[in-house]
């Protein structure tokens, strides 16, 4: 069984969208679920939160941002290529209200996992305000899709190249200060951004969910590498999460744990880039 890439889209220079033929996953996947995939027989198993799905077509969409060897190797795949493994859905469905007003915050490529949450909330009749942002305009992803899935959309950039000049968290703060009634906030992005979101909403007693992305191996609760401390308790992000109460997460610990293999990751990435460079020079790279 191979999992064929039926569509590939460049969202930015380093962020690619893949529509993958995976009928078994597409059947039952819901917003908040993740998959574990491998792109080669020597590859590592990496978790990726699902960005979209089409049950009828039997496809699941994931967005990959190049940060290391595995993500680079995936982004070098072309339409028609296949993942060797693509398993899911895994984890718990994102916690979602049935009514009221929810603000969905997506930072960087964290916009991708926020998209299905916004869509699902909207389909339930919840009012959805989305705040998405990136360092600079070129790195903003899925703006049209988020626009379509939201009642209001705020665009932010750290450098002011588009939308609000500042962080998504600053835009969120402004929205709260403006007196708009908000029932819940869902925030996905880099760990520091999620931590900052929690700090913005906590004084207002605003219920907030974040999606953690620790290192995983099996994704079924078997190895325990994805353990996080939430509300002082040990949780496995793979089976208990990935969404957790933003005000209960021990971010410092989670940040440190994600650095466990920083050195190895850098080594592997450097070797890969070296190789890719060689291949390109030789004109031998496919796709």
């Amino acid at each position, binding site marked *: *069984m191979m999992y064929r890439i039926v569509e590939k889209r460049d969202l930015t220079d380093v962020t690619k969208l893949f529509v993958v033929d995976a009928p*078994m*996953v597409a*059947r*039952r996947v819901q917003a908040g*679920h993740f998959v574990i995939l*491998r792109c*080669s027989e*020597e*590859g*590592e*198993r990496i978790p990726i939160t699902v960005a979209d799905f089409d049950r009828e077509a039997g496809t699941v969409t994931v967005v990959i941002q190049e940060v290391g*060897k*595995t993500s680079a190797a995936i982004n070098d795949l072309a339409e028609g290529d296949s993942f*060797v*493994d*693509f*398993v*899911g*859905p*895994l984890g718990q469905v994102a916690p979602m209200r049935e009514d009221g007003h929810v603000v969905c915050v997506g930072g960087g490529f964290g916009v991708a996992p926020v998209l299905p949450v916004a869509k699902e909330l909207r389909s339930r009749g919840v009012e959805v305000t989305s705040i998405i942002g990136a360092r600079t305009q070129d790195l903003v992803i899925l703006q049209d899709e988020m626009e379509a899935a939201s009642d209001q959309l705020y665009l932010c950039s750290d450098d002011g190249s588009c939308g609000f000049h500042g962080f998504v968290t600053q835009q969120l703060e402004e929205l709260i200060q403006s007196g708009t009634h908000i029932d819940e906030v869902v925030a996905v992005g880099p760990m520091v951004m999620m931590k900052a979101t929690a700090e913005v909403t906590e004084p207002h007693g605003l219920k907030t969910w974040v999606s953690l992305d620790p290192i995983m*191996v*099996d994704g*079924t*609760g*078997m*190895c*325990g*590498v994805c*353990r996080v*401390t939430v509300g002082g308790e*040990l949780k496995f992000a793979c*089976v208990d999460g990935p969404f957790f109460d933003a005000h209960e997460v021990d971010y410092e*610990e989670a940040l*440190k*744990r994600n*650095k*466990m*293999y920083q050195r*190895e*990751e850098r*080594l*592997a990435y450097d*070797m890969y880039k070296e190789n890719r460079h060689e291949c390109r020079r030789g004109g031998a790279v496919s796709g």
Partner: protein
Amino acid sequence: MVESNRWKKTPMREQSAEERVNNFDEVPFGYSEEEAMAEAERCLGCKVPFCEQGCPVEVPIKQFIQDLKDNDPAKAAQTIWSTNTLPAICGRVCPQEEQCELQCVLAKKGEPVGIGRLERYVADWAMERGLDAESPAERKGHRVAVVGSGPAGLTAAGDLARMGYDVTVFEALHVPGGVLMYGIPEFRLPKALVQEEIENLSKAGVDIQTNVVVGTSITVDELLEDEGYAAVFIGSGAGLPKFLGMPGENLLGVYSANEYLTRLNLMKAFKFPEVDTPVKVGKRVAVIGAGNTAMDAARTSLRAGAEEVHVVYRRSEKEMTARVEEYHHAIEEGVQFHWLNNPVAFLGDDDGWLRGMECIKMELGEPDDSGRARPVAIEGSEFEFQVETAILALGTSPNPLVPSHTPGLETEFWGGIITDEDSGATSREGVFAGGDVVTGAATVIQAMGAGKNAANAIDRYISERFGS
């Protein structure tokens, strides 16, 4: 010429300790033909073969050894396969000393017949020649789903296929084998051999689907109602590691044995960067616990580059649960044992990396619930133990993923699926379970025994319910 000794097992040659700590190759070499014949000759062929009563999968031991004596190893293989679909695995990892060999009459005065070694010899002999088990019986026209491809699931699948059922095995990981692949190290159980034995099941008609998480990819109810399976066997194992809730348990460098072994066995992290999955093995490694998994983690650490490996256990050598053979192998290889020491905290540096453990010395008190002497801390005996890597081998619990997605499937408070002991029948009609998901972490052969019993019960259930 290998002489057979009435009271002693024919020795099995193995890699020397100095040599083997530098590689992941299998430790014992297995018998040569001559050695196997010499060992088979030791069998008295008892009228009542007590050895067979000690075998959870009822291997016709007396008969297969007789086949060997008759110089017909192909027949011996068929004899073993008649009840055991995984003999190359069993011959290596079964605790024969507690089972068949414990019952051997020779064991009363000397050493029992090396039944495990002979089983391994026959299985390897047949595998080298590409022999298969005899083809399955007439098709029954019913489908059975098996959840998990570890020892319980594979045994149930093999037996059901042989009875004529159409069997599909669902495996969550990307390769089948369960704990045989992710848990038990290469040097005890070569992975190519596990795959070959599983390949034989596929040839016998078992359909194995990897990358399917029963519970989330597809539910047990869907298998029964929508997918046309007449029965489901759950053998999803004890894949839930225990943590102690000790301070510092989440420091970098603290691993569950499951994670550590999975990285090294399944993902081959010892080959990094040739493969993409890394692992960090410090110069000084501590393994907490003294069961078979602890021995596996300790011996793997030596091979993965650790300079010193320390097993730290809060009880004494007497209470250790590891097989004696594994313990001896570990000692030979240089693993150091620290009995009656209990870690109470992991100590870290500013970046969150493990730098040591705080331990306390223990003494043995009154027996506890398990019947073993309860270890009691000696006040004021705390000391610091410097390590860079710590591996928690404290046991595992049944993985809750399948039960939690199967309404009406009753479990014990500690997670085990509640079953009828003989049949493996659960609280749900048509759903059977066996192996570690029922008992908590146990041995490969016990799981296989449970898979075998459940296969028989499933056959009875389907015959009664649907007619055969």
